[in-house]
């Protein structure tokens, strides 16, 4: 979108620059330019849009249709799928398990967004202060965490928290002197989500830190200096100077984190394979997978997925509208 807008502007300015030409010529050339200017960006957008519609739009439509159908494993292999109205939705909304999963997902999302944002911002502020050597060191560390595939990371973390051979139990025993042998970190749902939060946050902090660090470099030094001279402390300078400058960055990063954490799948799914009780630890993404692919109820799973999409769109629209309003002001 941005590039097409720029294109039009370039053409407009090009037209203005051609003012010195004779009136007849100007009219002709300006006219044809304007027409090309109208269609060229549109035509350039066509392939990208077609691909987006095919890759994202079509599955979404399929999902939506499926959520109104009786769709089981037989339908996957070609049997006709009868329409059953809103049966799937009434079944989902009437299932206490769904509400438990939804509440759990929202809580998990909230905890993770807050943890990742706070830690990420602190790391970014740290990077802004330290010398080049440590800046490079922290960057490399963050990049390694960011580059690690979620599944690999979860399995390695799972080893560390292993009941029998985990290094965490070993260290806890060495430090606290209490018996941690055979302590299961995943069997208790709360403890399970603490481990999951560690893994998810570990993977999310680099993105938050890098983005906010990039923003921090754009905060004018002199404003900060002036604030300091006026007697503003470190926290006040962050709250009253840095934060307002970075507000839009924070909004975007928070939206992305909310979306990523709400639909979290890999970490939870892999952890459930290592230990814990599935029924007490499923989040929305995993629950959809269990219902549709594991249980063979694609229709019901589709209904949950549609509900989740609506939820996410609502959250996104709320934040996007807020940020747009702020920009206008």
């Amino acid at each position, binding site marked *: 979108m941005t590039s097409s807008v720029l294109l039009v502007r370039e053409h407009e300015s090009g037209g203005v620059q051609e003012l010195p030409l004779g009136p007849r010529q100007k009219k002709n050339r300006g006219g*044809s330019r304007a*027409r*090309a200017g109208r*269609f*060229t960006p549109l*035509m*350039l957008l*066509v*392939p*990208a849009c*077609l*691909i987006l519609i095919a890759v994202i739009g079509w599955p979404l439509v399929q999902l939506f249709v499926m959520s109104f159908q009786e769709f*089981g*494993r*037989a339908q*996957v*292999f*070609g*049997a006709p799928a009868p329409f059953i109205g809103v049966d799937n939705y009434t079944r989902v909304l009437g299932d206490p398990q769904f509400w438990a999963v939804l509440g759990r997902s929202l809580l998990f999302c909230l905890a993770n967004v807050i943890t990742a944002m706070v830690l990420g911002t602190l790391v970014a502020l740290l990077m802004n202060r330290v010398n080049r050597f440590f800046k490079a060191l922290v960057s490399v560390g963050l990049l390694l965490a960011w580059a690690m595939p979620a599944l690999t990371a979860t399995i390695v973390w799972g080893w560390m928290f*292993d*009941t*029998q*051979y985990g290094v965490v139990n070993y260290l806890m025993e060495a430090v606290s002197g209490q018996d941690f*042998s*055979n302590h*299961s970190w*995943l*069997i208790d749902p709360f403890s399970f989500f603490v481990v999951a939060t560690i893994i998810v946050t570990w993977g999310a902090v680099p993105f938050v830190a890098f983005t906010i660090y990039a923003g921090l470099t754009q905060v004018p030094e002199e404003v900060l200096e002036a604030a300091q001279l006026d007697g503003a402390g470190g926290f006040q300078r962050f709250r009253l100077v840095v934060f307002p400058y970075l507000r839009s960055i924070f909004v975007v990063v928070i939206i992305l984190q909310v979306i990523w954490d709400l639909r979290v799948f890999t970490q939870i799914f892999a952890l*459930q*394979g*290592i*230990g*814990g*009780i*599935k*029924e*007490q630890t499923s989040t929305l993404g995993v629950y959809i*997978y*269990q219902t549709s*692919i*594991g*249980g*063979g*109820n694609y229709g019901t799973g589709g209904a949950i997925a549609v509900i989740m999409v609506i939820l996410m769109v609502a959250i996104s629209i709320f934040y996007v509208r807020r940020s747009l309003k702020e920009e206008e002001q």
Partner: protein
Amino acid sequence: MRRKALAVTALGIVSALALAGCAGGSSGGGSAAGETADLRVWLNGTDTPDAAREYLKTTFEKDHPGSTLTIEEQAWTGLVDKLTTNLSGSDSPDVVEVGNTQAAAFTSAGAFADLSGIQEEIGGDDLLPGFVEAGSYDGKLFAAPYYSGARLVFYKKDLLANAGLTVPTTLDQYVSNGVALAKANAGVSGIYFPGQDWYNALPYIWENGGEIATEEGGTWTSSFSSPESIAGLKQVQEVMTQASSAAKDGNETDPQVPFCEGVVANLSAPSWVKSSILAPADSAAPGCPDQEANLGVYALPGKDGGAAHVFAGGSNIAVSANSAHPELATDALKIMLSDEYQTILGENGLVPAKISLASTLGTDEVAKAIGEAAANAKLTPASPRWADVEASGALQDFFVGIAQGGDVQQLATALDQKIDGILNS
């Protein structure tokens, strides 16, 4: 005007083509022409021995010059999900192995090609009848028997002797042995029983007269909460809480690790685990070959002596209905059911798919134990929806709850409700 419009349209088309070109470039070469193909065979876990894999590949490629056969190893965990997504696509694997209790979910859905035409050729009446039944739907064979495996008890001879115990002859004695061994050796599992290992819990239910689920007039009734099943489940709880120091929410994969570490006295596991235990110390998954003399084996004893009803684990093998090369795939399947291939399986401790090849198991004590166990082995309920029960994870959750010392009656009643819901939906 018109030329401009044309040029603009052309621009759109060209950029679309350019993008399509990028996409096409990454997907690589086209499909092979003629009768040759690159066949993909899915085998699960490390159950199929390397010698058999090698035999399948070389035999197939020799019979079909120009074609290749690649074995892609899949994990047993989450297999139903993975097969559902992959078999339904156009990029389906050609030959797939499926757990015998999972087969019905796919035979009933039309995921497999009909094998009735070659049933006589691959063995006919010689094929294991329980597995033929598991792979049939509507009177047609869709998934041929591949191998059967019996669950045996591996034990450390020295630990048993030190505690003054002998090989148990009844299930009760087996349990009391386990508890005594755990008491006598701190940190050792008298009987290794991780919480998610529901396969190993079934004999306790069956031996106490319980059933998993029964069918009457088309309606399934799950019966984990029947008095007989509860008696068995209480015994399971006793073993899990008093005899086992395995993770209460752990799964049954890689039991050779704690066994070789020396913290397991009795290990109930599929017969092929023997080769994992005795794997060379320098292999990718090292075992403890130095323990061979100390490694004993017996068939799990029943309530009233003799061999217990254990879970008849094993696999079926099928050709995907979406295979691009059904004829070549069927040829590969025929090789896997040939006497030569099945003999390799038998020699490696898997019960061959053909009754006539039972002697290939040999005559050592493992073979003897397999023979005893297989004679009394039982299957899970023969419902097409049973695979969904397994995939839902409800059984794992249930036994983790039991391992934590939860109220057996209450947990079993809740599980019955859940299974009834799945089997009758």
